[in-house]
């Protein structure tokens, strides 16, 4: 591996030599953005309405709008009005290594701020509150988690919902047969085609998937919350200057009330591509988080012990 690292070091060094000199006082992500002239925004394919692809395959959503505000702030701060924005698709499983490796500078999607993840990455203030439920076909007769005994359940690899469901399965000894999948759309299709009976996911994403299905009425979202999942934009750890910029931008949106407009746009209006309206009023939890912006994380195993 030694030679290969050298090759990479050479590439990285070439990049540094080309960098403008005035960026010396900056560190971390801001320096990276200044040096490279590009900010890399990580997005998801199917986290409706936070971060997903429209029918032109462009990433859009509530999280993407908030990230656009952050990009504006970066442009102003670095005095780089022509800063290039690059969108990089990530999945639940790739997001953390991709962020740490500098392939993206922030992830704008549906990532739960968990204490476990805080060992590796940092989070902006919470911008949505949700939790794990399951989606099933109405015809399956599944009414609650305990009906899943011995059944097949699909999960998206790398999610907190996977852990919450597995912790529940271990505790209640349900003997669930788990099958992994790459992203939420693929997991949902596993339920749609009958390969799995249930898919544990944050309820808001389940409502989004249901609304976008061919026959939304075939599905229902059921169960008590297995976990609490506060969503936030994910950033690299130990980068106080960039975190402050992001925190200030997000809190600014909260203080000015602009967040309410964004919320209404994505959760209480028709959204692309199919013009569905999620009709999902703001929860008390989110109202509290907007009043007191915070980046407190939750435990790893949902409401179970682990």
């Amino acid at each position, binding site marked *: 591996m030694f030679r*290969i690292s050298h*090759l990479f070091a050479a590439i*990285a060094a070439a990049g540094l030599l080309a960098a403008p000199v005035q960026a010396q006082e900056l560190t*971390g992500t801001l320096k990276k953005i200044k040096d490279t002239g590009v900010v*890399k925004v990580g997005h998801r394919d199917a986290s409706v309405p936070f971060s997903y*692809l429209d029918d032109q395959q462009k990433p859009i959503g509530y999280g993407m709008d908030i990230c656009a505000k952050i990009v504006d702030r970066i442009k102003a701060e670095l005095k780089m009005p022509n800063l290039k924005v690059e969108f990089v698709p990530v999945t639940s499983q790739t997001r953390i290594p991709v962020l740490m*490796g*500098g392939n993206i500078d922030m992830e704008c999607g549906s990532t739960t701020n968990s204490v476990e993840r805080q060992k590796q990455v940092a989070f902006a203030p919470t911008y949505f509150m949700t939790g794990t439920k399951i989606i099933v076909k109405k015809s399956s007769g599944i009414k609650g988690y305990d009906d899943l005994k011995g059944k097949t359940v699909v999960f998206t690899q790398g999610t907190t919902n996977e852990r919450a469901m597995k912790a529940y399965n271990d505790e209640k000894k349900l003997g669930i047969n788990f099958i992994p999948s790459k992203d939420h759309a*693929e997991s949902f299709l596993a339920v749609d085609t009958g390969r799995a009976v249930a898919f544990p996911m944050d309820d808001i994403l389940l409502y989004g998937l249901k609304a976008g299905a061919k026959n939304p009425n075939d599905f229902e979202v059921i169960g008590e919350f297995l976990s609490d999942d506060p969503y936030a934009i994910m950033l690299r750890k130990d980068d106080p200057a960039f975190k402050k910029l992001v925190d200030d931008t997000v809190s600014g949106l909260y203080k000015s009330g602009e967040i309410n407009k964004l919320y209404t746009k994505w959760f209480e209006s028709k959204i692309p591509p199919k013009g569905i309206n999620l009709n999902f009023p703001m929860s008390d939890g989110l109202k509290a988080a907007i009043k007191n912006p915070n980046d407190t994380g939750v435990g790893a195993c949902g409401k179970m012990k682990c």
Partner: protein
Amino acid sequence: MFSNFDFDVIQRALPYLWQGMLTTLWLTLLAMVGGIVLGTILALMRLSSIKAISVPAGIYVNLLRATPLILVIFWFYFLVPIAIKHISGDSYAQGIGPFHSALIAFTLFEAAYYCEIIRAGIQSVPAGQVNAGYALGLTYSQATRLVVLPQAFRNMVPILLTQGIILFQDTSLVYVVGLTDFMGAASKVAQRDGRLVEMYLFAALIYFILCFLASYTVKRLQLRITPPR
């Protein structure tokens, strides 16, 4: 049998799929060129009589040939940028994005395979040719450049191209890092619209047509350039 399938979904997605195909073709072409260049260097190193040169090249080739491509892609996308950050002491990791990571992974991976093809090709050039070159006063590098490599490559062109077709198929594995190549585009549309059957069959058809035509062309070429015995 296909009555409840919707093949219009393919037509609507064509521009997006075309973008994906361009990514696939670029990745194939660049990795092939890079792989052949690096593979030639490695082959010359492996054939060197100096152990300090031939052994590292041998280790590299055997290591890469024993590792699954998917694992190599993960190594480059996830880990190498972090390793460089540690080595260089920079304040940030300089990720180079999924396309360039994949390109480097494919180039280095394919180089190991090209190396073995090229090594066999070089060895197929009779030693007398090299000796004749030396007798004319050529240096080692001149003999390699002017006598050995041109003949070796002439014999190898079909095998190198066939390996290129395999590479073209292998690029579909960038799916695992979420890069939107042809297969990535097909699977994104398939999952978003819930049309797995139509999209995957279509992808298979396109890959089949392209690879079949390419390998047919290579076969024709092979018949033409094989020196008469």
